[in-house]
């Protein structure tokens, strides 16, 4: 088992290496010049060239890559060109809204998806099952930014229940910041509930056909108890898996929602860094986002191995 996990760990490192390399070279392939942007209109071409030198952008790309990789292996993501701080600090500053947005969204998605999935499985084939499946499809067909705009118009502008955008004024309390996340988290929760609904339904169907569930029923246990205790209890692992993966993808994938709601999260950091050609920030942020995904994936594998020793790689 440990050998298998070690192999899995090695595979993970290779994937991260590929991500790092891919991101670095793609970043450099993009047209645009951060030095010229930094200096503004009055700077001469010589000034721009000089600043490029300060950032090491005048060196051959392959040399830049080697230097960057060396620092990366030491855990150093480099220094932002525009933010006057280490990349890791810039990311850490953005982590809070992104983290809580992902967390709240997952709560919403789970609160919708798991009960809907169970209901759909229990009443398989009936109208309610069809309705839930259709509803899940519908949720997965809604562009999150559009739902965000509509929610803003309705709940924030018309009804005034929620703030239109932002993460609270400077110095806002934690409660106030969370309040600013309610609307975006609902949007992401709804859109992401589809996958959780479908997974819950499928795993519940598998489990409900198992002998021990029939046995439990035969023993005269109440239907609710059978479904929740024996059914859901045993279907939990795949459900947790899909919840975990959804959470992982939300770290970078909430980018559009962060933009619509003006949340200063990691997605927004990447977008502004791309626009400014802040190479170290683009590279660092994408590596961190990919790293989180890969790690959560790995943890899920470990969890499977622990829960179900039959799982092999």
């Amino acid at each position: 088992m440990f050998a298998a996990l070690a192999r899995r760990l090695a595979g993970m490192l290779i994937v991260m290496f590929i991500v790092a390399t891919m991101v670095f070279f793609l970043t450099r392939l993009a047209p645009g010049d951060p030095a010229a942007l930094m200096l503004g209109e009055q700077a001469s071409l010589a000034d721009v060239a000089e600043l490029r030198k300060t950032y090491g952008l005048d060196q051959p790309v392959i040399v830049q890559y080697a230097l960057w990789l060396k620092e990366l292996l030491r855990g150093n993501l480099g220094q932002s060109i525009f933010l006057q701080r280490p990349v890791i600090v810039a990311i850490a500053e953005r982590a809070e809204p992104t983290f809580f947005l992902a967390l709240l969204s997952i709560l919403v998605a789970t609160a919708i998806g798991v009960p809907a999935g169970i209901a759909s499985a229990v009443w398989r084939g009936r109208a309610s099952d069809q309705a839930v499946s259709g509803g899940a499809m519908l949720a997965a067909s809604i562009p999150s930014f559009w739902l965000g705009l509509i929610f803003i118009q309705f709940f924030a502008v018309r009804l005034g229940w929620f703030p239109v955008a932002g993460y609270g004024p400077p110095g806002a309390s934690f409660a106030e910041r969370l309040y600013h996340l309610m609307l975006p988290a609902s949007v992401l929760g709804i859109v992401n509930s589809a996958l959780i609904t479908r997974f819950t339904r499928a795993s519940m169907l598998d489990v409900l056909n198992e002998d021990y569930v029939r046995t439990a029923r035969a023993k005269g246990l109440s239907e609710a108890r059978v479904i929740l205790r024996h059914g859901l209890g045993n279907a939990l692992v795949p459900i947790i898996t899909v919840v975990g993966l959804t959470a992982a993808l939300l770290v970078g994938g909430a980018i559009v929602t962060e933009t619509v709601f003006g949340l200063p999260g990691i997605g927004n950091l990447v977008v502004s860094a791309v626009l400014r050609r802040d190479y170290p920030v683009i590279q660092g942020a994408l590596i961190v986002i990919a790293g989180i995904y890969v790690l959560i994936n790995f943890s899920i594998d470990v969890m499977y191995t622990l829960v179900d020793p039959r799982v092999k790689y």
Partner: protein
Amino acid sequence: MTKSRHPQFLQLGLSRREVGGLALGAATIAAFIGSKGASAQAANSLNLAMIGEPQTLDPMASTADLPSLIMMHVYESLYTFDQKLNARPMLAVEMPKVSADGLTYDIDIRKGVKLHSGRDLDVEDVIASLKRWIEMTPRGKSVGAALVSIDAKGTHGLTIKLKSPVPALVTHMALPSGYAAIMAKESIATPLVNYIGTGPYRFKERKPDQFVILTRFDGYSARSEAPDGYAGKREAKVAELRFIPVPNANTRVEGAIAGQYHFADQLPVEAFRRVTDSGSAKPILMMPYGFPYLVTNTKQGLFADKKIRQAFQLALNEGEMLGAAFGDEKFYRATPAHFPQSSPFHSMAGEKVYNKADAAGAKKLLAEAKYDGTPVRILNSKQYEFHHAMALVMAENLKAAGFKTQLDVVDWATLVQRRADPALYEVYITHSSFYPEPMLSPPQLGAGAPGWWDSPAKNAAISAFNAESDPVKRGALWAKVQEVVYDEVPYIRVGEFAALCAGSMRLTGYVPMPMPAFWNVSLG
């Protein structure tokens, strides 16, 4: 004040006129609209919606507007401008004593001015700051080229010696972009970490894409003269300034109307009506704010031929370009003059070729130059909606005159890179803020700027202008330079445009200046 408020625009902030759908423009990055907390706390603080995130907070590290706009509340300079854009002393006691040959400047610094660190400002701080400015900034470098020495004279005086006259020296030191900020000498470092100046506000906190906060500096030493533009007495009437990046222009408009922002910078001119009608915010118009200009590639390709550049100039309908870009005439003016009538540099040189839309004349020039149908590559960016609007009209004008055209629309980060390569374009579109003094903008008047303009006529006209310090003669010599610009077409100044901002009805004491300043401003 340079165009740069935009170039960076980095944030896509784009500047005025971006249309909402634009790019990330859509990003309402740190809009606080709707948040009740913001206005509740506002009594003693100002929420100021800026067009984007500053490139840096080191005012010498960029010529972009945003760093200077924010940091001029923190750092003061030796000189500054009054409302008519005349230079006035700030940290200097009075205007410098200049020797008859224009080569020696004696400057006295005010005594007892407190730095944010609590210490008194002395000449060592000033010299260290000026040296940094001369090393780091384009304007400083141009002064540096003529510099012999800067020496202390006692604890509060200094002497600047020059090889050749620099008539614009005081203006250079007064301009708040890439500016000669005076810093505590022990804080000087690159990159700058501690922002210690003498201004009415001190730096408190920066959270990128969320805010930069400045707080009142209680030990501020104000001048005694009445306020006039940036000059005279400065007083921090509001305890806290919060500069909030709001790249989406529409969000700035809505936020100002909703009362979340006490000031919103650089709004699309279409918002004028909406702000006026709102009853909750008032429009603030600054005209002229700046000028769009088209830089030609004089080094390589089609436009290396002066005749073809002249044909290009003759073909353009500048009035129509400005109309497409800015709509109502309240917001723009088509004029060949580079300086307004009130300026000693006013000249109508060029009126025979400016705004002519003379397709026939252009065709004739093209025939003489044996134009072979090579397309004119127009490099422009949609990130400034008004750049792109001008490009579209321009292409139509050129086609009418028999040019072939090619619109290369790229994002701003790409444009600033491509314009450095003479193989890639014939003309690119940008803009600048208006400066009271020639030679400050556009950079094509100097050396080493994109477009690579360099000719005997340019060098003769410009060195004659630069060598003269008599204000009367300088006016005539500038007219000469302007004539050469219209003859050789290294760039075309399309006209002038206004900046529209919005301020809360409760805002008092705000004086429209090219770059907004918030000392002496209070909330009624």
